[in-house]
């Protein structure tokens, strides 16, 4: 035997400063979207100080409401690793249906329409999960189908809404003239936040999004959670459609169609990983505000409308570059 054993020191565990560095990195990722938002607002305010008036701020928040409601729901689907492309066209369909049904059902049209949309989401979720068709495709088909339903139901025309049934969605309340829509959206967001924080739902969403096989093998209710995400997403879309009717006094088959890409952009800018498994409602709020400020703020800042698209494109890319957490995306697709 001519071997020597040189037992070395066995101690070597986590060391302080480096851990703090990774914690600081996490912190940076959390505050980055907020910094981007603040920088944008500051830049616009420098160009046009009136942007910081109370009335202007309320207007921005009010404008963000439909996007916020849509994004809250769509975020759930993105968290489980899917995508819901049908939200905007569902919102359009909801606007038509609620406008058609208010004369007969009055205020009951609202819950009925939300339920109808939820059923549409259930159908999409079921096809996705049971037939195992990628969500991108199911909801792309859904986008076309719900648009068709909206066109047929409305006869391709705008359905005006008279009366005061939906006034609660678009009015100002209190001494500060707070838009009611902002309060409604805040309440909805609070419900989301509470459910995600105090129930196991978030855990299921995240585990499915980051490792679906592991979630399945751990007995997480994968099927139910995924379908539920689609149902909630669709219900939110329906509600957003109703909110839009409240502010346009009519339902139209293409009313919300253009909101699809802003919704996805808002979720991603907020820092939620488009591949799923990482993100949350707080990030989505910030993302929605960033996109809304970009949508309404550029003209306020006096950007020539010919150049607005170029600015929008550059700033969206720049914002995403700063806010996404690359450590959650080992391979950027």
């Amino acid at each position, binding site marked *: 035997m001519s071997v020597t054993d040189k037992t070395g020191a066995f101690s070597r565990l986590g060391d302080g400063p480096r851990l703090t560095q990774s914690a600081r990195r996490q912190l940076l990722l959390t505050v980055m979207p907020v910094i981007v938002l603040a920088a944008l607002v500051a830049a616009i305010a420098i160009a046009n100080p009136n942007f910081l008036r109370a009335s202007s701020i309320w207007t921005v928040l009010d404008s963000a409401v439909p996007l916020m409601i849509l994004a809250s729901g769509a975020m759930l689907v993105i968290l489980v*690793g*899917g995508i819901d492309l049908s939200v905007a066209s569902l919102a359009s369909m909801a606007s038509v249906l609620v406008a058609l049904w208010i004369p007969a059902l009055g205020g009951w049209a609202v819950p009925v329409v939300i339920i109808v949309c939820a059923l549409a989401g259930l159908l999409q979720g079921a*096809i*996705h999960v049971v*037939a*195992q*068709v*990628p*969500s*991108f*495709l*199911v909801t*792309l*088909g*859904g*986008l*076309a*189908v719900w*648009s*068709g*339903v909206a*066109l*047929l139901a409305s006869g*391709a025309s705008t359905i005006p809404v008279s009366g005061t049934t939906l006034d609660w969605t678009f009015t100002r309340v209190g001494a500060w003239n707070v838009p009611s829509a902002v309060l409604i959206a805040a309440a909805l967001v609070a419900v989301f936040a509470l459910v995600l924080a105090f129930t196991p739902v978030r855990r299921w969403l995240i585990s499915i999004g980051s490792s*679906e*096989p592991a979630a*399945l093998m751990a007995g997480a209710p994968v099927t139910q959670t995924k379908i539920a995400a689609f149902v909630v997403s669709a219900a939110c879309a329906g509600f957003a459609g109703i909110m839009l009717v409240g502010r346009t006094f009519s339902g139209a088959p293409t009313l919300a169609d253009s909101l699809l*890409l802003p919704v*996805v*952009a808002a979720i*991603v*800018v907020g820092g939620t990983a*488009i*591949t*799923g498994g990482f993100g949350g409602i707080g990030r989505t709020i910030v993302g929605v505000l960033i996109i809304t400020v970009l949508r309404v703020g550029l003209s306020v800042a006096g950007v020539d409308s*010919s*150049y*607005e*698209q*170029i*600015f*929008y*494109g*550059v700033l*969206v*890319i720049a914002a*995403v*570059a700063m806010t*996404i957490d*690359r450590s959650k*995306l*080992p*391979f*950027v*697709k």
Partner: protein
Amino acid sequence: MAPARLGLAPPETGRAPGSPRPSRRPDRATILADFGPLGALVLLCLLFGFLSPQFATWGNVRNVLDSASVLAVIAVGLTFVLLLGAIDLSIEGVMATAALSVALLVANSRNDLDFGFMGVLAAVAIGAGFGLASGLLSTGLKIPSFMTTLGMSAIGIGIATVLFGGVQPALRSPELAEWASGQWFGLTRLTYVAVAVVLIGILVQRYTRLGRYARAIGGAEELALLSGIPVRRYKTLAFTFAGATYGLAGVMVTTQLGSGIVQAGVGQNFAAITAAVVGGTLLSGGRGGVLHSIVGVLIVTVLVNGLVLIGVSPYVQGAVQGVIVVAAVVITAWPLRKRLRVVK
């Protein structure tokens, strides 16, 4: 000691659960994935041929091929991006800028420039430039392509808006007009352009590193890295190639319409993605290819054409398309279902 050294490698071996055993024959699922879309196309053609007497005429075949040409060119480029597992939403913007550029660079009603076919090349190069930018932003800044290309699309439309400046530049170039309306052997010249691009696409996919590596990266990016493939370079290259095809598509639309318009690519993005996916080029990357996408393009074009011919109400055409697309995918995906299959 002795038994240990004689103790051969343990015969017990773990095998990745669910991994198929070696077989020389492709299994049923692969056949379905490869030939399902083709079958669907044939079925659609038979159906429309039965429902509409005009469908199976030579004139309509020519029309379908001509209509499919722009989408086919786009789909060829998009296929490479999808093979990577990435996505490209910049098609509308790139086509807009290319359309305006070519209209302003060849003989036109707005200025005195007349670079002829150099102008066409320049527009294609501009398209490639957009693709290069998308690729560099995606790989360099590690931004998901979904967002970079979305941003690039807005930038492209913005630049086109600035170039447009109020008056549509109408083409005044007889050679280009000839390309739009001229025919060879009964088919429009643009159809041949599309066929040429498709052939180039197939050659690139089959015989060049770009095609091979795009598939490798889409199949398993980390493994492609381990194999020493310069992943970033080839990803960027794929986006660049795709951008060039969108540029060419913008030029084709401009010659068809006779003037450069910002809306040249409206609706083409979703149409192209739908076509590629319906044809079997999956969004998850690594699967499908140029031929798959082209079958998808033909399915989409035949659907639109057939629905108009049999007189389906324009309101429901979109919905019918949606249902057919989902149904087609459900049917092809049904035999692949497994309890633990992960589908995003």
